[in-house]
């Protein structure tokens, strides 16, 4: 089943000079892990905001699990589509972890006992149980973003969108977040749309999509996508180092696999050399 579907969607911002999305057709299957890549201003965040009605398409429609987004079902859709944003410091409403995770569940009028269970579930899913009563301001960037993910999870969404959620984190924080998201995708079966400009994060995805000026210009399995390095460069994207090494080795006549994993690559090289 299609979890998220953009049907002939057009959208433009009011200010001039920006990009516009025209007749976009794109869909994500249930349980898929899709990475959306693109440099700044390529329209990838707009894609996220269209998915839960933060922005409304000028024409065409966005459907979540087959239901078209409209004014009447806005909150039903938002329950199913959780979004985690970029800035770890401007997403939390409350100062304490559990209060913030509870916010979404409180908003939809859930009974108290259920909210308590949801908080436990969400914090366990992101590995932050022991921080339940901690002050958010004292957490690291990666931990703050994990709390933000928990805040989205408290509504038990079936789709989780990360809109550049790793952009303001250090490498360690980025690893934490990507790891948590991968786990949620595999263990909870949550459909994931990971929007990022860090190419290496796309390695975990089952499909990678490249956006440029409001258009989807490339889409393929990440390993195959990374073989087209020169094309990616024209969209201002740089290859992850391992993919670049693989491409150079191939250009030099070595036959290495697409695994994009350091150990596999080492074995492949060893085979070729011997």
């Amino acid at each position, binding site marked *: 089943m299609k979890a998220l579907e953009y049907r002939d969607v057009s959208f433009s911002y009011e200010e001039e000079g920006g990009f516009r999305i025209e007749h976009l057709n794109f869909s994500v299957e249930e349980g898929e892990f899709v990475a959306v890549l693109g440099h700044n201003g390529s329209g990838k965040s707009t894609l996220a905001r269209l998915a839960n009605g933060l922005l409304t398409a000028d024409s065409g429609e966005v459907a979540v699990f087959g239901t078209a987004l409209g004014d009447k079902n806005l*909150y039903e859709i938002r329950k199913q589509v959780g979004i985690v944003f970029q800035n770890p410091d401007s997403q939390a409403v409350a100062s*304490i972890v559990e209060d913030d995770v509870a916010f979404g569940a409180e908003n939809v009028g859930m009974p108290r006992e259920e909210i308590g269970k949801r908080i436990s579930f969400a914090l366990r899913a992101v590995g932050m149980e022991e921080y339940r009563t901690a002050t958010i301001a004292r957490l690291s960037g990666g931990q703050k973003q994990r709390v933000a993910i928990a805040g989205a999870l408290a509504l038990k969404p079936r789709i989780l969108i990360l809109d550049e959620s790793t952009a303001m984190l250090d490498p360690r924080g980025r690893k934490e977040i990507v790891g948590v998201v991968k786990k949620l995708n595999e263990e909870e079966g949550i459909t994931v749309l990971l929007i990022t400009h860090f190419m290496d994060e796309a390695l975990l995805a089952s499909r990678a999509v490249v956006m440029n000026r409001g258009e989807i210009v490339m889409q393929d399995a990440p390993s195959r996508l990374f073989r087209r390095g020169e094309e990616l460069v024209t969209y201002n994207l740089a290859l992850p180092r391992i993919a670049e090494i693989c491409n150079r080795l191939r250009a030099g006549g070595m036959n290495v696999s697409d695994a994009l994993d350091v150990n596999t690559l080492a074995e492949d090289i060893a085979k070729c050399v011997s």
Partner: protein
Amino acid sequence: MLKDVSFGQYYPVKSFVHNLDPRLKILFLIGYIVAIFLAREFLALGACALVLIVAVLCARIPLGKVLRAVKGILFLVIFTAVVNLFFHSGDKVYWGGEPVLWQWKIFRITQEGIIFSAFLVLRLCLLVIGSSLLTYTTTPVALTDGIESLLSPLKLIRFPVHALALIMSIALRFIPILLDETERIMNAQKARGACIDSGNLFRRMKAIVSVLIPLLLSAIRRADELGEAMDARCYSGGNARTKYKKLRLTWRDPIAFSVLAALIAGVAVMFVFPVFPI
């Protein structure tokens, strides 16, 4: 320097005071402030101080934290002390009853002035420590829950109590973030050669504009982002909302109430019948 303003800085430990009902804590603070202003002599103010010291000990807040609250208004404390030290002139001075210890032009120190300014400083410190004790021991969320609950009768006249409470809790939550931001902007401006900490008052005021405008811009941007994040989490106003944390009275509350009631009663009695009037 900026971090010294300790409001909105919850100190997370478990204690008697932390576990008091936030609604009562707010009322207690109001009662305590009333008691401080009713106190006209050192004995009464001493009783207030004693209650506060016991409360701080019960709250398990480290002394440094408590003193930091005073440090934040150190200028005000010193200013009050100095002005009252030099210019306080009780009735007795005019009647020539009080000996002047030291005099230079219009500056005059009398024994009464010393006592009075000490009294004011103590009063000011008690006020600030008492107020910060509330914010140290109560999470901003609990605080706003308390205020919301105390104001809830106003819903009858269609006053937007929930919106107000949310505004307050968000404001409290953003104080530390905006303080960090201010420091960052100040450093950035200094790196560009701005003199924020030097020069005369006028020049400094002018320099501070270069901090305030970026700060305001960033606050607006953050507000925008937060609004989006709230929307994404199904926020639709206060009508259909439930609350995860419910306020409940415990055995602690009557104890705290009796202590404070005794204090106010005692101070009120001393207000009417002074024991050692200043």
